[in-house]
């Protein structure tokens, strides 16, 4: 990857809502081509939103503005970092794009296709860049991409991904006592802020496939050269966590993928509980080409650390040499410069959103479902 021009003044970035785990704006702040200058959100947001926004602004010594339009107007922004609830991603991003600002937005892009389409229209009308957060720069994924590009296994014919997060999500399934109310989704996600597992924060319950599916599907998309999933068959279940069962969403899903160019694929994804793995979870890619195959562990390289008194839930293997966040920020800077395309742009993330929604429809109907893509 080419380095960005350090001599240029850093891009001025406004953080539009930072209510989840804040890895995205932190990654942007850590890159020398960017400077966070404010946090902004809509005044009518609930109190917990303002508290989190204010806390992040205080940490970085920047103002928190309870008016997005005012912040855009007053702070001479070049770009925004959107880390709101997923259901608000596209609205905030589209408002920034309409003001001519580049956008880096957390995953998943949106829970609805119409939200994606509104954002894409705004981005293209105002000719601004958009990077959707992903994990495609993890060292093992880069290794897979380079091996494919070098032709080591020939033309790709099949790709299978296992993507399990061994995290809990509140009380286990079947632990709700008679008479207790169902678990409130937003309340549960607000509790989860403490351990960073609040990726589905918002009023709209979203299952593991909707929240995290963008990661493995972005791998598949990149490693197939941007090929789109044409048709999907899926099964889903709430197998582990009461909050998922109470809200009618999945914590386990399996997908069979029919991909352009005749590639077949599959995906298993789940939030399978902290007891199910000593680390964050088994995450693997299996690629079969016409000349060979690859089995890639997303976690590698890693180092094992064990010690007396180690907390039960502490990961025993730590990932090392992980520069994914830095490289994403670098990619965003280069995209703004006009010298590199975003590694996952809004159209790509929209394709993934469409695949996820088709999978959920398939799981409901029991039939394969064609994915509703925009015209190429």
């Amino acid at each position, binding site marked *: 990857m080419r380095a960005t021009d350090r001599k240029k003044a850093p891009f001025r970035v406004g953080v539009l809502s930072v209510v989840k785990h804040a890895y995205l704006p932190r990654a942007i702040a850590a890159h020398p081509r960017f400077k966070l200058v404010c946090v902004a959100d809509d005044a009518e947001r609930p109190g917990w939103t303002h508290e989190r926004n204010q806390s992040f602004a205080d940490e970085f010594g920047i103002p928190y503005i309870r008016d997005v339009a005012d912040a855009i107007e007053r702070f001479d922004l070049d770009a925004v970092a959107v880390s709101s609830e997923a259901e608000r991603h596209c609205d905030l991003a589209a408002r920034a794009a309409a003001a001519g600002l580049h956008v880096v937005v957390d995953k998943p892009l949106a829970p609805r296709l119409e939200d994606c389409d509104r954002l894409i229209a705004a981005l293209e009308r105002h000719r601004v860049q958009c990077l959707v957060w992903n994990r495609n720069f993890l060292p093992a994924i880069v290794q897979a991409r380079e091996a494919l590009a070098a032709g080591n296994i020939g033309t790709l*014919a099949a790709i299978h991904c296992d993507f*399990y997060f061994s995290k809990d999500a509140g009380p286990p399934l079947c632990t709700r006592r008679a008479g207790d109310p169902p678990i409130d989704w937003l309340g549960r996600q607000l509790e989860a802020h403490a351990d960073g597992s609040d990726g589905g924060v918002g009023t709209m319950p979203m299952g593991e496939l909707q929240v995290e599916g963008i990661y493995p599907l972005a791998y598949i998309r990149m490693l197939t050269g941007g090929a789109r999933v044409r048709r999907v068959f899926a099964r889903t279940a709430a197998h582990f966590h009461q909050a998922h069962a109470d809200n009618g969403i999945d914590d386990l899903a399996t997908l069979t993928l029919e991909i352009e160019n005749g590639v077949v694929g599959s995906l298993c994804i789940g939030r399978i509980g902290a007891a199910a793995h000593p680390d964050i979870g088994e995450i693997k890619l299996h690629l079969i080409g016409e000349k060979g195959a690859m089995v890639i562990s997303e976690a590698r390289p890693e180092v094992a650390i064990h010690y007396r008194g180690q907390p039960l839930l502490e990961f025993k293997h730590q990932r090392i040499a992980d520069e994914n966040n830095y490289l994403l920020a670098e990619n965003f800077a280069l995209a703004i410069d006009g010298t590199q395309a975003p590694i996952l742009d809004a159209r790509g993330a929209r394709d993934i959103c469409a695949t996820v929604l088709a999978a959920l429809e398939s799981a409901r109907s029991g039939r394969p479902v064609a994915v509703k893509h925009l015209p190429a």
Partner: protein
Amino acid sequence: MMTRLAFRLDEDEADYRAAASRIGAVEVVALDENPDALVASAGTAAGLPTLLIGAIPSVGSENEFAALPLRFCPQVRAIRASLDAGQLGRPGLLRLHRWSPPGRDPGRVAAVDLALWLIGEQPVATHGIRSLNNDVIHLGFPSGAMALLDFTEALPAGDGYHSLCLVGSNGAAYADDHRDRNLFFTGGAPGATPPNFSKACLRPMLEDFLSAVREKRSPEHTTRDLLRARQLVEEVMA
């Protein structure tokens, strides 16, 4: 009481004999030495209880036993024991990757049998796709459990690759050739090879067969299981 066991196999008979020699109360004899049971590639002999290796028993046969070696692999036995002990909770997902080089069966029927056996249900939803030498079989079960199995016969000549993950409500089990490989440096990139335990299923499979013979168990269940798995593969991939 000693059981006299004979063999009539097209392949790997020495491995089977070696495995039988490690089992107590078994005497390996020739077919004309009045055996109590037979391990054969096809057909029975004189109505002997027969474990059929690589062949489908006749429907309704009282003496032909289906061999299901995958159920007896050491990693599968460990996972089954954990499942039976309740450690893993309710099965939610079985994921299998089974890859082989051209000309070697990646074991679709055995893999589907394993899925049905570990999950303990018959599927209510099935789906399959195929592209060139790559198949995916997708099963959904009444409890909500699911199985996703992929197969290829497109590996370069040499070793195959097997991976099994069973995710239950209380935990998960992983048996993956990727983990079991050792590195061998002979210049350039190292080779990655597992210790050879490919025959480790034979002894427990023979022990189970001999127990069935001694206890006069019917072969009906294993035959039915194998035929169901084969039918399912044929239907899904049709």
